[in-house]
């Protein structure tokens, strides 16, 4: 029988095993394939939408621009997510990805419903704060199961949404530019630097 290792060596091995367990548990339960560059691209399209929509002559034209941007940003986000996940060998049908996407989906679906209801009621000025607040809720909820930058970005959206709710309706587009443009680009860059892609 081989001699037993010294206590110090045993301790080092135990520490190494504990680290391995922690890392494996973290990787198994969090969804890390959030795209950084994709987020920055989504932010850039939002800045463009803000610029174009600030010149819109009617509320309906303003809404059409933002809905078009939402569709483009969703396509970019989905493509970037898929690309980063497949490069990392992470399945989008796996448990961590499913939980992350489900957490995002509920507030986003509520946002779509509220948009339709607010437009029908003619409450145009509430669209910007509601979008910011619900997108922030989605990021905070999904972020619980993802990297730290995601819930922090969500908190930023919640703050901006609250500020938009309390300030003049004419500043709605500026708040959207700050959130969907500014915050997306800043946090996208952070994710890109810290977590790649």
């Amino acid at each position: 029988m081989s001699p037993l290792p010294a206590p110090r060596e045993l301790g080092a091995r135990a520490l190494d095993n504990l680290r391995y367990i922690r890392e494996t548990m973290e990787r198994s339960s969090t969804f890390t394939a959030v795209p950084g560059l994709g987020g920055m691209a989504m932010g850039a399209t939002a800045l463009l939408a803000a610029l174009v929509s600030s010149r819109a002559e009617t509320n309906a034209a303003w809404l059409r621009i933002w809905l078009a941007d939402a569709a483009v940003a969703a396509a970019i986000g989905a493509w970037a997510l898929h690309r980063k996940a497949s490069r990392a060998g992470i399945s989008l049908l796996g448990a961590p990805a499913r939980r992350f996407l489900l957490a995002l989906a509920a507030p986003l679906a509520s946002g779509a419903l509220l948009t339709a209801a607010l437009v029908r009621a003619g409450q145009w000025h509430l669209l910007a704060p509601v979008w910011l607040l619900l997108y922030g809720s989605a990021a905070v909820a999904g972020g619980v199961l993802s990297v730290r930058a995601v819930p922090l970005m969500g908190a930023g959206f919640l703050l901006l949404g609250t500020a938009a709710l309390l300030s003049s309706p004419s500043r709605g587009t500026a708040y959207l530019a700050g959130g969907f443009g500014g915050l997306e680009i800043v946090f996208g860059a952070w994710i890109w630097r810290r977590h790649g892609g």
Partner: protein
Amino acid sequence: MRRVAPAAARPPSGRTASRSAPAASVRELDRLLHERIRLGIASALAASETLTFNELKALLGTTDGNLSVHARRLERAGYVSCQKSFRGRLPRTEYRLTAAGRRAFERYLDHLEAVLRHARRRR
């Protein structure tokens, strides 16, 4: 092939390990979990309720053969359960930690902590 005795059946030594000598701690360490891939499988399943074979393979960065051998050992010991099904035409194997597996995993963590405490006291 030799059947592995379920380590879950061994007397739990949990917290008491902190008082025992390091030699005893090492002997008491669950040999089944004291292997990287098997420890990885148990850790991953302790954090995520169910994982498929492919998810575990990507997570642990191992090969089909290696994962399947180690997963089978854990399964035979009653630490993990495995459910096979089809998604479309593709076979799908899903693993989850059993109650005995979770207890063994927690006991293993207790042992690691005890070994660490002992090593620190001796420094």
